[in-house]
Structure formats: C-alpha cells, structure tokens
C-alpha cells in the first residue's frame, strides 16, 4: 500500500487533471457536488456525501448523443459523443456501490454503448467514510463504509495523510502515473487504517441495529404487498417532486428529447423521474400511474422488489441522501422499516 500526505493533494489534483478530466467534490455556496476540477475550486473531501451522487459522471443528467440536420429534404443523422478519460476522486463506498448497480442495468444485454464507454474511460477512486452520520445505513445492504470493492483505488483518510491502495489494473496504472507524489505506507499505518475500517463498520451496523432496520426479507414480503394499505400512509405527504430520484445513486430512469434551431439540432437523453405526473402519461391521455399513490409505490417497489427480482440485489445502497433531503421525510429507510414490520397476508 501507498500513502500521500495531504500537503501534496493540490499537486495531485494538478497532475491528475493534466492527464484526464478530474471530478472532485467541490463546494459552492455550501453545496458539495462532483464537478470537473478547476484551479481555485474549493475541494471538500470531508463532506460525507455530495448532494448529487457521482452517477452524473457515468450517466450524465443530460447527454447529447446524436446530431441531425435536414437539408434539401434529406435527413442526416450523426452520432455525437463528448467524452474522454476521467478520474473520479472522492466517491464514497456507497456511491461506488451505486455505480455497480447501474452497471447491471446498462451493461446487461443489449449493452448501452454510451454508458459502457464512460465506464471504460474512467478510473474511480473511493474515499472511505470515517464517520457515517445518522442518515447512513449502508451496512444494512452488506456494504462497508470503509471499503469499496468496485473502486479502482481505495483511499483512507488518516488525518495528515491518505492511505492509498490500488484495487484494479486501472488503479495500478493511475497509481504508477502519480508515483512521484506517493510514498510506501508503513506496516503499522496499514494496520491502523484496517482497524479504523472495522471500527466504523461495527459502529454503523450497531446504529442500524438500534434503528431496527433490516431490509433482508423485504424483497419477499413486498411481492404480496402491491395492494397493501401501507402505501396509503406514505403517498399522501409526497410532494411529487423529483429530489429523491435525482439524488439517488441507483435511480436511472431517463427520457429522450430533441432540441433544434431551424433545421439542425441534437438528441439527448436526460434523467427523468417516476415521481413526475407525466412520466407514464401517454399521448392518448391514458396514464397507468395516475396519482402519487401509484408513483410512490412504483419507486419503492422498483428499488426493493422488482430490481432485486431481476438482479438479486436491492437498488439501495443506504447512502441516506433521501433521508437527508426529502422535504417531507418520505425516505426509503422509513419505508423499509414499515414494510418490513408488516408480514405478508396480515393486512
């Protein structure tokens, strides 16, 4: 394992950004989000979670993929792509797990070329969490706040320095390219990091235990709960906004739209939300999910029942973003608790 002293981080940003686009958690007006790093940006590696997860790096909120032109009644269509190598530094382990869940959707047959190319071109560096907060519950999904198996490089914040461990070929390659800034980590330093990791995991697991969260059986329970009255107590307070879906590391619904000026333009895909009234509204005026009740149910059923039935895993990583940001506290942690407490058939 390697380490980098924190004084050298500015040099690291410079060096990394000279070889690729470097996404870092950047603070602006009190909000920390991943953004392509520029000289003078205020980097915040301490913020537990960015507001928007780094899914927008692998699956941008708006992504133009085609240009078109109508000329002399002829239609010209051309693929359009604007990417290249990038480094994502500072993703939390839950964020990395979120990307792994997106992989299952976008990389399954038929493979989504736009997404897979972005995934190939990026190197993901995860920073372990030393102090998860009350909204965190990643251990409930068998994740560890101190470890991201899906990351190319794993980094632990040890105070004055970051302990650095390459976990993949891509990670080794990037490590080699910044070797000049790294030092070998001593045995006891490595040991300290692993101890910290264990401690943090144990602490969060204990907190989850105390809150009574146990999602493990929910995917089975929910199979019989489509018609349950339980949804009544959730949907009424929902405002129908898209915060939960847009800040969720695993939500991936999108829309496809065109823009144009005169006879030229482009086609893009952009995030969309199953919480929005027009998400399933058809041209005929029919809407299979006409009210907030069906939409709220869809969101939670998809994460906790439908996705697991297809991929074996919950589409939730316990990052706590919806817990922190839902304006009316309609978060997945509460839903898990409520639906887990109701045995099938007892309704």
């Amino acid at each position, binding site marked *: 394992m390697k380490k980098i002293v924190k004084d050298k981080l500015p040099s690291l940003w410079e060096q990394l950004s000279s070889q690729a686009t470097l996404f870092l958690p950047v603070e*602006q*007006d*009190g*909000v920390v*989000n991943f953004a392509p790093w520029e000289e003078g940006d205020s980097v915040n590696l301490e913020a537990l979670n960015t*507001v*928007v997860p780094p899914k927008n790096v692998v699956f941008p*909120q*708006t992504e133009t993929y085609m240009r078109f032109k109508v000329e002399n009644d002829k239609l010209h269509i051309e693929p359009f792509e604007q990417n290249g190598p990038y480094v994502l530094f500072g993703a939390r382990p839950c964020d990395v797990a979120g990307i792994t869940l997106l992989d299952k959707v976008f990389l399954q047959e038929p493979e989504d070329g736009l997404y897979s190319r972005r995934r190939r071109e990026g190197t993901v560096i995860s920073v372990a969490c030393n*102090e998860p*907060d*009350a*909204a965190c519950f990643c251990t409930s999904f068998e994740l560890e706040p101190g470890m991201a198996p899906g990351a190319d490089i794993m980094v632990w914040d040890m105070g004055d320095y970051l302990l650095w461990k390459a976990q993949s070929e891509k990670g080794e390659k990037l490590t080699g390219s910044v070797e000049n800034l790294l030092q070998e980590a001593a045995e006891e330093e490595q040991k300290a990091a692993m101890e910290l990791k264990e401690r943090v995991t144990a602490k969060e697991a204990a907190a989850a235990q105390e*809150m009574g969260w146990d999602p493990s059986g929910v995917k089975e329970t929910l199979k019989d709960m489509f018609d349950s009255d339980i949804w009544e*107590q959730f949907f*009424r*307070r929902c*405002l*129908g*906004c*898209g*915060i939960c*879906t*847009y*800040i969720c590391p695993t939500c991936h619904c999108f*829309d496809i*739209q065109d*823009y144009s000026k005169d006879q030229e333009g482009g086609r*893009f895909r*952009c*995030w*969309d*939300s199953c919480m*929005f*009234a*027009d998400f399933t*509204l058809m041209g005929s005026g029919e809407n299979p999910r006409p009210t*907030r009740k069906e939409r709220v149910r869809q969101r939670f059923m998809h994460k906790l029942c439908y996705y697991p039935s297809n991929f074996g895993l919950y589409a939730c990583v316990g990052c706590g973003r919806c*817990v922190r*940001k839902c*304006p*009316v*506290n*309609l978060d997945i*942690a*509460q839903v898990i*608790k409520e639906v887990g407490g109701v045995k099938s058939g007892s309704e």
Partner: protein
Amino acid sequence: MKQLAEIMKDIAAQSLSRGEVDLVIGWQKGPLWWQSYPAFIEGNEGNGETGSLTWDSFCVPNLSRYLLEELPERKKVALFVKGCDALGFNQILQDKRAEREKVVLYGIPCTGLVDPDKVESAGLGRGLLEVKRDGDELVFVYDSGEQKAQARDFLYDKCLTCRYPNPVVYDQMLGEAAPVQPEERFESVQELEKMDADERFAYWARQFSRCIRCFACRNACPACSCRECIFDIPEPRWLGKANELSETQFYQIIRAYHVAGRCVDCGECTRVCPVNIPLQELNRKFIKDINELYGEYDAGVDPEQEAPLVTYKTDDPAAFTES
C-alpha cells in the same frame, strides 16, 4: 411546546370523533431528530392515531398545500396552520382552489422553526437525539447530556424575517400569540440590486447552474396551484428537459413570474431546494417591486383583495418610459 402538542392531539381526536371533519392534517415525528412530517389522520377518532400528532421546532412543511389534493375527496378537512401556512391557505382560497367552509383551521402561534443545516454546521448534529424548544433557547439532547443555545441562531432565515408568525385566518387559535419581530426582508435583494448587470448575471447563473430540475420549489409552493403546470405540458413543450443553463433560467424566471403578486413569502421554495438556490430572493424581488410600483401588498392576508398583477389602475406608473 409539549403542551401545544397535547392540545393538538385532543382537538384532532374531538373533531374526528364528533364527525366534524373526515380528515385531520397535522405533523408526526419521524425516527430522526429533524424529521417532523405531514400526517394524515382519518376515520372515526382517527383510529387512535391522533396521539401520534406532534408539534416541535421542525414542523415546517406547509400543510395547506395538501388541500389541493385532499379537499375534492373530502367533506371537511381540519388542519393546523402556522402563520406562513395560513397565508398559503388564503392564497389557495383566492385562487379558488379550496372552499373556506370545507376547512377547519387550528391556528398555531409560531416562534420560528429550526434549520437542521444550521445545527449541522455548528457541529451539533453528531449523536443528537432530540431538539427541544424552551422559550428563547434550544435544548440539544444527547446520550451524554444536554446542551443549550440561543434559538435565534438556529432558526431558518425565512423565520427570522417572518412578519406573520401568527395565523391571519383560523377557526380556533391554540395558544398565546407569538411576538412579531421580523428582520428586514429585502436586504439580500437590495445587495443584489447594487451589483452591476454582469455581476448579477454571474451570481444567478452560478446559482442556477446547480439546479437539478427536481421541481421541488414548484411542488412545495402554495401559490403553484395550477391543475396542469405549463412545465408539464408536452405540447407545446415550453420547458426543454435538458439541464442546460438557458432552460433552467427559463424555468426559474417563469416559476417566479407565475407566483408574482401571489407569493406569500413563506420561503418553502428555498427550504426544499436540495442545492441551496436562494429562490426566495427571486420571489422577493417581485414583491419589492410590486410594493414600490403599485402599493404595499401582502399576498395571503386578505383573500378577497385582488392580486396586484390581475388588476390595474388607469394611472399606474410603469417601469419603462411611456410616451
């Protein structure tokens, strides 16, 4: 405040059991200290759920907005209103989206609500179990003990400038009137007005560049009561779905304009914004200008009065040169 919560529980149980209303909207406590969210209690005696009603420093969501969805299906609905909620209710009345006689309002004098972000920034969030209000002070409760602080330092900015902490409309008032001591509300607007055009543009462009287009500001707003929002209409699609600065500017300008003269200044838009865009400062610009040009007007105070942008006087001044 515990006392007020008890009164709320009793009154909710009474009005449901007497059949006066078929739904009570109040607040309930969630598992975490900052979670107090809208609660919907129905049925005879509320099926014993009225006991879960709460009132604390986090009961911030405006309940009157829910009338848009709930009222059409109900005979009569009771809800608790803080000062800002009452203004919102009146605005919904003025917009003819609710009938006064179908609603029972229980007024709550409000001494300001606590902004969880301010608690977190002060480093008080770790291990916090509960926040209690004790007069002008807040009591932060931890496993290890309690800590006290001045409440004012932790209130939402919108509460610090609140001019109507006591409901302007109610059927029954619960508790003594709260003191009215608002700070000047147009200060930020004035600061921005002092900048030059390019600075102002850069300021707002930076704010808008963070917008994720979640529409929470619209959906939380008691003045955004259109049955079908112009931003949702597919044909013609006024608002493009791409997250582009130009589209976001379009969205935010039109959103603010649509509530100009009807915005009750409750500040919910700013509160719910996940990326800290100071949306209230957009709405307040309209309020300030309308006050200056067409006379002082407080939306939501009198639902019988006409909103300033749906009326006129023949000798109105203009903000452009008339010739």
